[in-house]
């Protein structure tokens, strides 16, 4: 393990966070809020820590192997969350550090789960920082660092693999740095477009930016206690459609930019993703139709909630907690399917679900014809057994971590439905859950909040980086 290299890159992460914290300080300046000082102070802490890490661990060996990649990503995200919680605590707007940590992890992992009872009580700069963490975490902070700092390291593909969700991570162009730049350009352009569309629909600029951040990162932090419920149908449609767009694999957008429309439209993942989303929306629409004023409203609410949960955003336009059991069950299933690989969303990912079902199909065929030679194909290419096994064991691990989280938070005395949905909501990076937890996570104890924070990080980084970093054998010299 090249520890010096790991610590020096983590130092760069702290430095980057220091710079990013100046943006909410600027917001505080505009609204003349005293909370701005807590950002300046936190930025100074980050900068000093970053400088110490970079200077104390200077090394000539810039090689990153798989284990360094995992460690950098896991430790980097933990540190980023720990530092990102500082402004909330310093400004006393979220006085408990554990609460602030939960809120920041929820932000960076684009979960959108909150421990706040009254969101509207927060100052503008705090609201901005909360949502800005969604934006940073959505595409990934290390991708950002790789785009900004040239020649960060040889073999940095290992960092990219550990941070970008999905079973197979590919580059768009030969260089990682150019790939990272292209991804960020697509990401920023889409966010700006959404902000403009929201402003046109009459949403105030600040609210538009906050919601665009929440949508882009598929996070779900709003600035209203009622989330999106009180906004006009046009604004709800804009957000619903953009949520579904940010849940698409970003490679598709690159294909569109390169005018390869046929290849983009032929993507099996894209087709299955929209097929599931639209089917789910249709089922919900039918099931909630009697409770709404008409088909138009039912379709809007149904599609919005399906898109919001499947992309793991977590915005809300209706009291879904009071919906019929069928609608709630569909939403619960959508939580686990999640968005496409290579998007900003969480969950198991549509690609993996497709692969899982294909390998089940192959297994059934083998049982009937024990000598059958069956190759599983996906997106026009054969899948090797290595990838399929990887997907299978990832799913098993995912369920195991989900069960552990569920078990550990059960000590707090909430109902079965609340605990199951809260655990699913955190590991899949969604945000709201059922029952009392649909309003927020404030009923959970400090212990459960830490457990849920780790579940959120595990879900965002796809478990392995976090798991490997806490194994002693990763660090021992062997």
């Amino acid at each position, binding site marked *: 393990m090249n520890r010096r290299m790991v610590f020096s890159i983590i130092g760069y992460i702290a430095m980057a966070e220091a710079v990013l914290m100046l943006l909410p300080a600027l917001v505080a300046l505009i609204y003349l809020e005293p909370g701005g000082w807590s950002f300046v102070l936190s930025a100074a802490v980050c900068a000093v820590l970053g400088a110490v890490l970079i200077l104390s661990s200077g090394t000539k060996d810039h090689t990153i192997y798989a284990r360094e990649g995992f460690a950098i990503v896991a430790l980097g995200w933990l540190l980023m969350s720990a530092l990102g919680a500082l402004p909330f605590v310093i400004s006393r707007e979220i006085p408990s550090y554990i609460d602030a940590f939960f809120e920041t992890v929820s932000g960076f992992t684009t979960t959108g789960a909150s421990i706040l009872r009254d969101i509207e009580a927060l100052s503008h700069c705090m609201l901005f920082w909360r949502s800005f963490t969604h934006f940073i975490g959505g595409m990934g902070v290390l991708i950002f660092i790789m785009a900004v700092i040239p020649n960060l390291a040889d*073999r*940095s*593909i*290992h960092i990219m693999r550990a941070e970008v969700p999905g079973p197979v991570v590919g*580059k768009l*162009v*030969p*260089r990682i740095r150019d790939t990272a730049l292209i991804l960020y350009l697509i990401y920023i352009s889409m966010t700006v477009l959404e902000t403009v569309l929201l402003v046109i629909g009459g949403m105030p600029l600040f609210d538009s930016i906050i919601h665009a951040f929440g949508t882009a990162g598929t996070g779900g932090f709003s600035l209203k206690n009622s989330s999106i419920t009180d906004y006009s149908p046009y604004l709800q449609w804009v957000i619903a459609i953009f949520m579904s767009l940010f849940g698409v694999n970003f490679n598709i957008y690159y294909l569109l930019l390169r005018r390869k429309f046929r290849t983009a439209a032929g993507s099996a993942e894209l087709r299955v993703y929209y097929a599931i989303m639209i089917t789910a929306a249709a089922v919900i629409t039918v099931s909630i139709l009697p409770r709404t004023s008409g088909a138009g409203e039912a379709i809007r609410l149904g599609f919005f909630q399906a898109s919001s949960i499947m992309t793991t955003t977590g915005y809300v336009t209706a009291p879904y907690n009071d919906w019929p059991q069928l609608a709630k069950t569909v939403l619960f299933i959508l939580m686990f399917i999640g968005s496409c690989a290579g998007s900003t969303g969480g969950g198991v990912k549509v690609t993996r679900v497709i692969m899982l079902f294909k390998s089940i199909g192959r297994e059934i065929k083998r049982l009937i014809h024990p000598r059958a030679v069956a190759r599983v194909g996906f997106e026009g290419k054969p899948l*090797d057994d290595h990838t399929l096994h990887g997907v299978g064991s990832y799913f098993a691990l995912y369920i195991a971590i989900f069960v552990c989280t569920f078990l550990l938070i059960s000590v707090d005395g909430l109902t079965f439905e609340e605990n199951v949905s809260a655990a699913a909501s955190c590991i899949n990076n969604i945000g709201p859950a059922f029952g009392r937890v649909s309003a927020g996570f404030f009923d959970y104890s400090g212990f459960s909040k830490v457990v849920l924070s780790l579940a959120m990080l595990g879900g965002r980084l796809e478990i392995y980086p976090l798991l490997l970093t806490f194994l002693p054998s990763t660090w021992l010299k062997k």
Partner: protein
Amino acid sequence: MNIVVIGAGKIGSAIIASLVEEGHDVTAVDSNPRAIEEITDSYDIMCVCGNGADVDALREASAGSAKLFVACTESDDTNMLACFLARRMGAAHTIARIRNPEYNDDSFGFTCQQLDISEAINPDRRAATEIFRILKFPSAVNIETFSGRFELIELVLRDDSPLTGIPLSELRKKYPADFLICAVQRAAQTFIPSGSDELMPGDRIAMTASPYVVQKLLGKMGILRKSAKDVMIIGASRTAFYLSKQLTSAGIRVKVIDSDREACVRFSTELNDPAVTVINGDGASQSLLLEEGLSDMDALVSLTGSDEENILISLFAAGAGVPKTATKVNRPELAQMAEKLGLESVIIPGKIVSSQLSRYARAVQNSEGSNVEALYRVLDGSAEAIEFRVKPDFPYIGIPLRDMSLQKNILIGGIIRGRRALIPTGTETIMEDDRVVVISSGHRLLELSDIVDSGNTNPPRPTGVAPAFSAVRRETV
């Protein structure tokens, strides 16, 4: 610059490594998923898994927009087809690896022309040429030639070498001949020496001199060994075929040993030369080697398909008192170990080809047209020797060398003017149409004006558009 490389085998990955190091955007295509996985992990490049002669794979790799397209799979036919398709799709320059001796004759020029292949490279023959030069001149570890006028010789200084222990400026007075010590590698560090530096035993040095001077000079210094007369080659490979041809035409007797009967028969039929004795037997068997007169040989060259076997056979021969051994090693990691074990001339075909390709890539990249005439990696690749042609717009024509402020670790090792080779002194000037050999370490030179430290002076950039780099080139037989 966008470069597409088809084939990520031993040669392919060596090429990819040097192109990535040069800072190009590389896309690799290979049909073997394991090779692709390996290469994705090691270099910052894009990889496509597929057949290099399949248009779908070429499209996915954006071969049409490639400035340089290199096909180096195992199969010559695939390479030619891939190059042809890529050229039709719009690739600017195509290079094919062609190994089969049948293709490597005069008629191949027609094929290249028809398929629009810019250059055919043959690692086997390149390696053979390199070994031939070493055998002709056994004191050197490595020799490169610039336009036939200059030689760049790499030597390892022994403990009793007369070159050690005196400043270089004194050395030049002691041996009044035209030579220049250009670069020194001492304990993994390479530097360009100045007049006050002294050489030490164990140093690996690179020096330039004209070919006639070299023999005499080294004779005076007492480190000349005579050219080989009898050479034993282990392994009847393609490299052995090319090498035998070159050796016999220089009047050197050759004995080739291979354990595969088929290979021996094919070898002797194809070569059809009475000066070459082909023996069917195990080249790793010490008694056979001794029986075939190993101790009377001037040199032994091991060219079997196995790196390990080559290293061991050469070590045995060196131990048995053969004055010169040359060893072909495909894997660079093993080559380093072989050198540590004491083998002096280790030939890595991938390295030879990759420096050839780097030269080509730089020439393509240089929008002014090709003024890089030759590029060689010397001293384990830690320094480069590049031959530039001086264009009329070079801003330092007629200025004495000592008045040009060169960048650190850059040296002008020689100037070729017409048919004359000059070892420059400070008063020498560069003239139009000269060819200048520049030795550099730690730089990446694209054109001759890059050697000047631009911090001190700001030379006017040439603006004229020279004809694009093209012309069908291939190795001559």
